[in-house]
């Protein structure tokens, strides 16, 4: 059985210029421990779909099932990382942020500090556990956000363009780090991006979406060995293939 089932999911909403079909009859499966990227131009409904999987939005049609159970709202089986650095709580240190979910779960103080420290070590921030977010760079803040989303051990990690606001060099580092984190934790990941190279670097499989209405255009499995070399011929071939799909989408 697939870990996550997206079944004929639609979401329509009203705007001043009429009803818009943000997501229209989208279906696909995600396997246990699979890294899936949703790629598409802005307006294709990829972030909306992620928010539906997260349970922040209710679909107007279809359903999401995780581990066979229908999603009706947000839950601790999913960790979420947003694009905006401001997602961290400024009044909590890096450690305090990472401990939040464990606190909600009712884990004891010593235990949650130990777990949070390990999570921060995983994202290579062990030197900054006592720092407040405003003293951390954008890349560090996003690493704290990843550690925070993983700390209470959800089975699924949902990421909405987490590195889109970072500079190119930092983004490369973060992608490598995320690939390592995923290899170590083996979470099921749904990762939204509009960056094709990022998708080829990270994903087992890429779902390409097209806008107006938001639909699945195609699925591309990336069968490259890890760690991947972004300058290899095969890597560039995949990139070309995805760009081609997206180019057709724009035409």
């Amino acid at each position: 059985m697939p870990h996550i089932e997206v079944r004929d999911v639609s979401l329509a909403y009203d705007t001043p210029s009429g009803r818009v079909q943000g997501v229209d009859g989208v279906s696909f499966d995600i396997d246990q421990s699979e890294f899936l990227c949703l790629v598409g131009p802005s307006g294709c409904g990829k972030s909306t779909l992620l928010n539906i999987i997260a349970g922040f939005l209710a679909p107007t049609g279809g359903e999401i099932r995780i581990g066979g159970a229908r999603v009706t709202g947000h839950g601790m089986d999913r960790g979420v990382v947003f694009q905006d650095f401001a997602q961290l709580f400024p009044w909590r240190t890096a450690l305090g942020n990472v401990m939040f979910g464990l606190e909600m779960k009712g884990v004891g103080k010593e235990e949650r500090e130990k777990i949070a420290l390990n999570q921060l070590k995983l994202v290579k921030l062990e030197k900054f556990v006592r720092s407040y977010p405003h003293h951390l760079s954008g890349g560090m803040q996003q690493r704290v956000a990843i550690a925070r989303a993983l700390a209470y051990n959800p089975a699924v990690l949902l990421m909405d363009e987490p590195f889109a606001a970072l500079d190119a060099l930092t983004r490369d580092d973060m992608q490598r780090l995320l690939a390592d984190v995923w290899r170590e934790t083996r979470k099921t990941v749904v990762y939204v991006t509009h960056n094709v190279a990022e998708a080829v670097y990270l994903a087992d499989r890429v779902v390409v979406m097209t806008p107006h209405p938001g639909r699945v255009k195609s699925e591309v499995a990336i069968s490259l060995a890890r760690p991947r070399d972004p300058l290899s011929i095969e890597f560039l071939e995949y990139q070309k293939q995805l760009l081609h799909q997206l180019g057709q989408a724009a035409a």
Partner: protein
Amino acid sequence: MTPAFTRIRSARRAIITLLLAAAVYEAAARSGYFAPALLPTIPTIATTLFGMLADGTMLWHAGYTLYRVLFGFALSIVVGLPLGIMMARFQPVERFLLPLVSALMPIPSFALVPLFMLWFGIGNLTTIMIVFYAATFPVLFNTWTGVRSVNPLWLRAAGAMGADEHRLFWKVIIPGASPFIITGLRQAFLRCWIAVVGAEMIAASDWGLGWVIFDAKEFLNADIMMASLAVIGGIGFVFERLVFGSLERATVMRWGMMRMAKG
């Protein structure tokens, strides 16, 4: 730069500002253009002040005033904070209270003193109620604004991590709204001082800084007025800089939610 060093420097700057203002005043008082009884020199004021401090009367006056301010201020927090939060969280509460707040807020507290005197008599109760009235609206208004301006991403993130309503409130909304809440407390405290002095002039008897000032006019004692004003300014300064300043440094500034001015 270390925080201690910055603090010493900021204290030094404050002293320079105050000394300059004092020098201008002193020059005016000694210029001969004004009657000494109306514009007493600083040494005269200082002598009066120390005399009143030494015999304890000034301490009693200040004590009474401070008691009324702190009592009224505490009441305004107890009432304004929860109401502001509820207004921001529950639409029916907001719909019900907002017109009331909009209508009551512009009424100067001073204008209510005669009415409150009829209701509560002369003395502590009236002045405390006036202070309470003056301080409640800034607390309520800023809390209301603060809670509404909490970043929705924090709520979403906390919700995803399993925070229920109760913990969302204490662990996200309150700290998230704290820059506004602290600003509200600060404004409220200032209003307390303004209100208490006015209220004491009319509605207090025998004790209180406002009462001393008003009483001194009967005997043309400008030095007593000035001495009392200095005490009001002094206490206000201490609260503003030490209490609220420290509160800000320990919370919103440390968290980077509010910054010091550059340069």
